[in-house]
């Protein structure tokens, strides 16, 4: 089973999909509206949208004959939180290193 975070990161790895998300961050849109700025076919835009839906980054709702797509923020927040957690692990290690070196400075300072 693929983990949600893997799906999110895989979905975000493509510039077209990031551009689609960017557009959706301004609000709901139709598939045709999303496809308009791209030189690629409607079919391949749909493929990108399906990947985004699988990663639960995009939600689809039907209004009459139209499909409206909107951004789902939660997986993005989770990915960002995971990245922040990874950075914090290293930051904590660098905190210890900094404290170590400063403790050395104190120990070697000439007493006045």
């Amino acid at each position, binding site marked *: 089973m*693929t*983990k949600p*975070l*893997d799906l999110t*990161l*895989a979905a975000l*790895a493509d510039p077209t999909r990031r551009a689609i998300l960017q557009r959706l961050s301004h609000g709901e849109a139709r598939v045709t509206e999303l496809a308009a700025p791209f030189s690629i076919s409607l079919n391949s835009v749909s493929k990108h949208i399906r990947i985004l839906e699988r990663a639960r980054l995009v939600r689809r709702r039907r209004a009459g004959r139209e499909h409206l797509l909107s951004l789902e923020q939660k997986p993005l927040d989770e990915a960002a939180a*995971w*990245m922040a*957690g*990874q*950075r*914090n*692990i*290293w*930051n*904590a*290690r*660098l*905190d*210890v*290193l*900094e*404290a*170590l*070196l*400063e*403790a*050395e*400075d104190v120990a070697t300072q000439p007493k006045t």
Partner: protein
Amino acid sequence: MNSPKTVTIKVSRRFRASPERVFDAWLDPAKARLFLFAMPTGQVVRADIDARVGGRFLIVDRRDGEDVDHEGEYLEIDRPRHIRFKFWVPKYSKHFSRVSIDIIAVDGGCELTLTHEDVLPDYAEKTPKGWNMILDELAKLFT
């Protein structure tokens, strides 16, 4: 979809110490055992460092009576500017990631940039999410 997606993590830090002192800390077993891979709930019971290109390191952290090996190999060493190593935790995964340390002198001290490449989210999720604990532990150790 099966190809593992990896992530790059980057952090920077200014130190008041010289580039040489900050650089040497990464390759000095006595210091590395205190800051590198030490988990707050664990205790580093072994730190072997063969500080040359192609040399290996082994840092063993004991967590709840269980030993967790952190193995690595130095890919580049250029004192006092640059270290690059790959490392893996055999207990959790065969996957290895790469860490680069870049140090530049800035007035009276230095700035270190750490780049951790090829971080696998799948594996990382299994590592303790306890960076809060790390920070708490730090406060205890260095007050």
